[in-house]
């Protein structure tokens, strides 16, 4: 019997080769979060949110998280492309378990998402964001776990929607609501009272708060809570996506 680890590495390697081969897509995917960062931080620079001294400092971790969730949800959903172009079948008849396939894909997209988020954080420094080396190192914890969670979620939705048409629906009805309920671009305390509890069910909320804490030292919830919540969400989605993978 072939080991479970090797296929994970092979599938990760495949993602990396594809990433290197389509570098332009990698850079163009940075464009949207960077626009958000540049325009929001300059547009709202004069606006005073209660309890926030510097909006760029508040916004940057949120935008890094945004880059992660969009990129990794997309990566998870892209198993639909693999199915369409047959590559999924090639893997399905190989002596490899579903768990290995899912973990391989998650490893690949988590790497990509981490690179993107790091690029956002580094590019935000000349725009007025200040952090330290330690913050950047610790931020990888949240970035990687968020990438795992949302790749898993993408795979989960790929199994449910089964075709490309559902893709826009997932973006509109799942990803954008989670994004706006995460406190990435404004504090959730500004939302109506009855909406706020929803944020506490949102995996991205804990990711954003955790990132904000390690990068800027200020956040709504403490580091222990955000770390544990982010970790739990990632484990649950890995298990869930491995379970539904058969149905894709």
């Amino acid at each position, binding site marked *: *019997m*072939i*080991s479970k680890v*090797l*296929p994970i590495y*092979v599938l990760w*390697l*495949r993602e990396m*080769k*594809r990433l290197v*081969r*389509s570098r332009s897509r990698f850079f163009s995917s940075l464009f949207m979060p960077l626009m958000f960062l540049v325009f929001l931080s300059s547009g709202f620079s004069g606006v005073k949110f209660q309890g926030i001294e510097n909006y760029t400092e508040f916004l940057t971790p949120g935008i890094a998280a945004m880059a992660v969730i969009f990129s990794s949800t997309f990566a998870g959903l892209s198993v639909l492309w693999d199915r369409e*172009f*047959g*590559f*999924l*079948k*090639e*893997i*399905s*008849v*190989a*002596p*490899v*378990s579903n768990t290995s396939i899912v973990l391989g894909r998650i490893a690949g997209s988590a790497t990509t998402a981490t690179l993107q988020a790091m690029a956002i954080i580094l590019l935000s420094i000349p725009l007025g964001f200040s952090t330290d080396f330690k913050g950047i190192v610790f931020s990888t914890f949240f970035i990687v776990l968020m990438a795992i969670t949302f790749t898993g979620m993408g795979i989960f939705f790929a199994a449910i929607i089964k075709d490309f048409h559902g893709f826009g629906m997932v973006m509109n009805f799942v990803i954008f609501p989670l994004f706006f309920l995460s406190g990435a671009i404004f504090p959730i305390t500004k939302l109506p009272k009855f909406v706020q509890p929803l944020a506490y069910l949102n995996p991205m909320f804990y990711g954003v708060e955790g990132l904000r804490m390690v990068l800027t030292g200020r956040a709504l919830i403490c580091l222990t809570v955000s770390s544990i919540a982010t970790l739990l969400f990632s484990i649950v989605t890995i298990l869930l996506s491995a379970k539904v993978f058969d149905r894709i």
Partner: protein
Amino acid sequence: MYSIIADCLEKSFEVKAVDCVSFKVKKGSIFALLGPNGAGKTTLTGILTTLIKPDSGYAEVAGFSIEEKLKVREKIGVVFQEPALDTKLTARENLEFHAMLYGMRKKERDEKILRALKLVGLEKWENVVVEKFSGGMKRKLEMARAFVHDPEVLFLDEPTLGLDVQTRRIMWEYIKALRDEGVTVFMTTHYIDEAENLCDEVAIMDRGKIIKVGKVEDLKSEIGEGAVYVEIDNPQKYTHEFEKLEGVKEVTIGEKFIQITGNVDKILPMIFRVLNGVKVRSIKVKNPDLEDVFLKLTGRRFE
């Protein structure tokens, strides 16, 4: 020794796609499922390659029950009807990743990949991204990939669908070469000539059922009826004599010809005996083909 044993496999979607199918495939032979589109061939292939779970029935591939998915998968190679390559990768990378998924070590990989690429004549293209390949080249590469890991059984779903005549012949040669190396080949086809020229045994499948299994020659001589068409003067003079011959099914006469239907191999010598000394202008023999066999068995024309 059998590489595939199927015992009353069944699978229903909206209709019964596979309806109590049983057969055996000898190790080292080429076995074809012949049937029109929609006969259930792809579903049956899916069951045997562990992609589709049958509703009931039992099957064994390369000595393992299809329930033991991973064990079966280690022993088989598959070429699907639709292309299943990663088009962003090069030919070699596609084979390399495949070989790695099957747990092959670097040295063995290099050796087997080269051998596979050579067999299908793509060694010069190994570092080209698959996007740039033609349809025929992609199919060849898929063939190469399917046997990189030395499978015991190779599954080919319509391996020559949409290929030009020349490439088809080349594919047939590869398939025969693999059989000669001891690989068991299970393929589906809806091309009569492919089944006749390539396969050791044929199973005729229609509407989810296998209606006949056997060697091509046996199927033809058992059920297939040919015809002998003789151009002579006064054919009516001989009608009675021909009708008396053993194995003759039907005698039809025209003004200057007579057509005798039956098992050609058996009746031809007797026809010559009857015609001894008669002035014959021409004789044509139409051998039965699998199309006739299909027609005879189902009462319908192929497709």
